[in-house]
């Protein structure tokens, strides 16, 4: 039987704190969603000024990244390159959602919505770095 890392609430709070701090630093108001590797919500923060739509979208981006083990940017770019079939997949193909890899395992995803997509992703990246996670599975060393 192999063992694998899993998010605890303490991890979730580190992620939301770092993501919120990044947003505040840039004067952005966003919704931040943290999902486990099954796509279930484990943490959520909606900053004042972020809209109810942002709340829903952040969750969808985070779930898409967690369950597909890919950034939502990846899906957005595939569609932009012409792969329309992705529109029928259960993912939200809008940049701003990142999976979290720890020791080569996906432990969940972070989704952000409220500013421009690449800025949403910037906030998500700040969040995942707080627990030493990477948005890509690293092979080897």
């Amino acid at each position, binding site marked *: 039987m192999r063992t694998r890392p899993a998010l605890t*609430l303490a991890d979730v709070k580190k992620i939301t704190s770092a993501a919120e701090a990044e947003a505040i630093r840039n004067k952005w108001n966003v919704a931040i969603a943290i999902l486990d590797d099954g796509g279930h*919500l484990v943490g*959520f923060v909606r900053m004042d000024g972020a809209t*109810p739509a942002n709340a829903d979208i952040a969750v969808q981006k985070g779930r898409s990244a967690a369950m597909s083990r890919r950034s939502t940017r990846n899906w957005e770019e595939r569609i932009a390159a012409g792969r329309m079939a992705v529109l029928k997949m259960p993912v939200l193909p809008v940049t701003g959602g990142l999976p979290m890899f720890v020791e080569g395992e996906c432990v969940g995803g972070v989704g952000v919505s409220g500013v421009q997509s690449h800025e949403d992703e910037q906030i998500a990246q700040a969040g995942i770095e707080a627990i030493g996670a990477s948005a890509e599975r690293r092979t080897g060393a």
Partner: protein
Amino acid sequence: MKTPVSIVVAVAAFAAAAFAHAQVPGYGPPINLDTAKKVAAGAAAEARNNKWSVVIAVVDTHGELVYLERLDDTQVASVNIALGKGRTAARFKRPSKALQDALAGGGAGLRILQLEGAVAVEGGVPVIMDGKIVGAVGVSGVTSEQDGQVARAGAGVVK
């Protein structure tokens, strides 16, 4: 002249109904993030004191998510249930237990099942500040009564 008992009862019932209706608070401005975090912290403290694993969801006056945290090892199903209870409390301006009780009464109470999106299970409580409903907190993870206890602890943090 003695007042007939039936008239006394009818007047009392009318007064009680009118009084009860007057008690339902109006909506205030939607809860902000800082307050939502305080409510959740109050609820989490109650859960931890009892060694309960729960999901705590805080929603605004529309029932839209403002803050959520899932304590370690809480059953996965509780995420959506906590959200549903919080939404119910915000959108119906009453604790979700009120719907649970109406349903449990049976007969005409079964109509509660037709209310789309309503979660008729205890654990969702409106958050009231300055006499107005600013949102709600929904809790799920242990028994309904325990969920309700945690939710009330959270809502009780703000006045």
